[in-house]
């Protein structure tokens, strides 16, 4: 890693290199996989297999304004526009839809873990069928309890073992336990550094905008098992430490308010999303991705337990606790909830979460309708009114507090 490059540049280059290696592997005739974001990345990394991440690819396509075109392509293939836009974009791409925004090699095998959501299962099954390629599935049952029971750990672990055997057959490579230990150590180091960097959101004023974390998520998803990712996150944390000392921030506006942004950003309309937040000085200082991807484990059983927990696979008690802790630690004044038309599982339990936050955190909570990748589901005027309402409520609460 170069001394004078900023961590965010290094992090971006690492993600680029993941995709570059996938193209190189394809050229060499090696099999390339597509993986869901929270499939145990340690497995493919141990076997030295090149893997691409359709959710990350779809977000990039959407941010470059290709989302609607790709979604419409998928709809003309017969997929409903009620299906997650990431899935629609990916299905269109797998069908060969022209796409300049973020080309990745087509898959030779699929790694799907439904801890992310169950839409994922059908999405990957469709691609497997369309392209006639093997699908390796890790099924994570919904966690209706806060703790993961031992029998579930055994069930998930057994699936890890089956996945390893299948991948050995597909790739002709041999599993190496020593390499696996190294890879796990890297993943743990990345996660610890990620959590450390995210924790700087608690500093007032924050040395970062929480939206940075959405961008850096690409690394925790695509490259968490790589030592260079761990090093770059450590550098990022060190930079935030330095910014705290020098009073700088990646949020270049006032920090009059601190909010939790709940949900995935609307990638096609980031400018519209930011505008009222910038104008009112509302910095995002809490996003759930910190605890959702910052998991450290010891040994394969703990790894299985860790992969059982993702935003949409934990019960509402655990989901509320993750966010409440974040809001308390990071001192938020209000919460902005994205009711994401794409992501039914995530948006579905927000109504009840909202109610609990209002009651237990005593901060205003406001929701808006949108979509992470299909711009047709977002209305700027409606969003703006809701954010202004949130800001007015936060302003009134702050005024009442300072009058006391």
């Amino acid at each position, binding site marked *: 890693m170069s001394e004078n490059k900023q961590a965010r540049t290094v992090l971006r280059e690492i993600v680029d290199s993941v995709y570059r290696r996938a193209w190189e592997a394809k050229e060499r005739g090696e099999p390339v996989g597509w993986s869901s974001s929270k499939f145990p990345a340690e497995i493919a990394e141990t076997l030295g297999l090149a893997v691409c991440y359709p959710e990350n690819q779809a977000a990039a396509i959407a941010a470059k304004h290709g989302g609607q075109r790709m979604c419409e392509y998928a709809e003309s293939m017969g997929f409903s526009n009620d299906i997650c836009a990431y899935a629609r974009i990916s299905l269109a791409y797998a069908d060969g839809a022209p796409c300049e925004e973020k080309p990745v090699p087509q898959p030779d095998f699929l790694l799907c873990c439904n801890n992310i959501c169950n839409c994922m299962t059908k999405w990957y099954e469709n691609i497997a069928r369309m392209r006639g390629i093997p699908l390796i599935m890790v099924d994570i049952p919904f966690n209706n309890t806060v703790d993961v029971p031992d029998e579930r750990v055994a069930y998930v672990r057994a699936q890890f073992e089956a996945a390893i055997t299948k991948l050995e057959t597909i790739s002709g490579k041999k599993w190496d336990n020593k390499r696996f230990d190294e890879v796990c150590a890297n993943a743990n180091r990345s996660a610890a550094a990620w959590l450390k960097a995210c924790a700087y959101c608690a500093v007032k004023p924050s040395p970062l905008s929480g939206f940075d974390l959405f961008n850096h998520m690409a690394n925790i998803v695509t490259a968490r098992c790589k030592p260079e990712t761990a090093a770059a996150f450590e550098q990022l944390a060190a930079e935030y430490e330095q910014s705290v000392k020098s009073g700088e921030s990646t949020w270049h506006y006032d920090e009059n308010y601190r909010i939790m942004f709940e949900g995935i950003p609307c990638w096609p309309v980031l400018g519209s999303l930011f505008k009222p937040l910038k104008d009112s000085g509302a910095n995002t200082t809490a996003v759930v991705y910190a605890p959702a991807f910052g998991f450290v484990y010891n040994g394969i059983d703990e790894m299985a337990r860790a992969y059982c927990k993702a935003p949409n696979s934990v019960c509402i008690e655990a989901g509320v606790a993750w966010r409440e802790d974040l809001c308390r630690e990071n001192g938020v004044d209000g919460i902005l909830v994205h009711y994401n038309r794409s992501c039914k599982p995530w948006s579905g339990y927000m*109504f009840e979460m909202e109610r609990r936050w209002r009651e237990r955190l005593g901060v205003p909570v406001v929701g808006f309708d949108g979509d992470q990748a299909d711009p047709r589901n977002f209305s700027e005027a409606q969003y703006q009114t809701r954010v202004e309402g949130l800001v007015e409520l936060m302003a009134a609460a702050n005024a009442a507090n300072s009058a006391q």
Partner: protein
Amino acid sequence: MFVLGTDIGSTTSKCVIIDETGEIKGKGLAPGGAGSDGPYKALDMALAEARIAQKSLSRTISTGYGRNLVDKKDGTLSELVCHALGAHALFPDTRTVIDIGGQDAKILRVGEKGRLESFVMNDKCAAGTGRFLENISRALNVRIEDMTAFAELAENKIDISSTCAVFAESEIVSQLAHGANKNDVFSAVFRSVASRAASLANRIGVMRDTVMTGGVAKNEGVRKALEEELNVRIYVSPLAQYAGALGAAVYALEPLTNDRGKIQ
């Protein structure tokens, strides 16, 4: 001293002029929102009723969807705070405001002095908003103001979807095609709008006094259906449609007066 509140909505423009005591001196309402001549017509009507010239206005605050598109004068404010202030000005004991406008439905929790405490708004869909009633009125060729009289004659309870404005419309057409009685259908339309607003209201809880504002408040049928759904009495002022503009005017007045409403 006079101040002006304007509420440039999606389908209509409203203006209210108040004096330093908060008394309404002039009001105007014209069809057409931002980009139309509605705002100017509404202003002219309010000025004429108040018998003053525009230059006599000490301050102007704008609200509504079109607030950023008109001359911003002394500031803008979201319609959330404005409806809370406006409802409080009309009914001082207001705790919950149900505001159903042209394309929005919102439920406001209001504290002392009309302070907005919390709110929830509808999602993107037009179901449960004034736009839905307009569509039905157009599809069935019955004026909105006449629908209540029909609904009062309803004999049978039929249900139509409350989740999607487009589905509901086609459902209604097919109900009629299958011989459903028009009166029953209008009553179902009102219940559909009311049930949508009621489920929104239940998300933050309904407290007494409950007040309805916005264009749909004029509609007796919806108000009655909502009272039934929520099991509360709902107060509606004849000035319900002006609540947002009135709230903007009240807000415009605040920095100019002390607590007793005297000019500072």
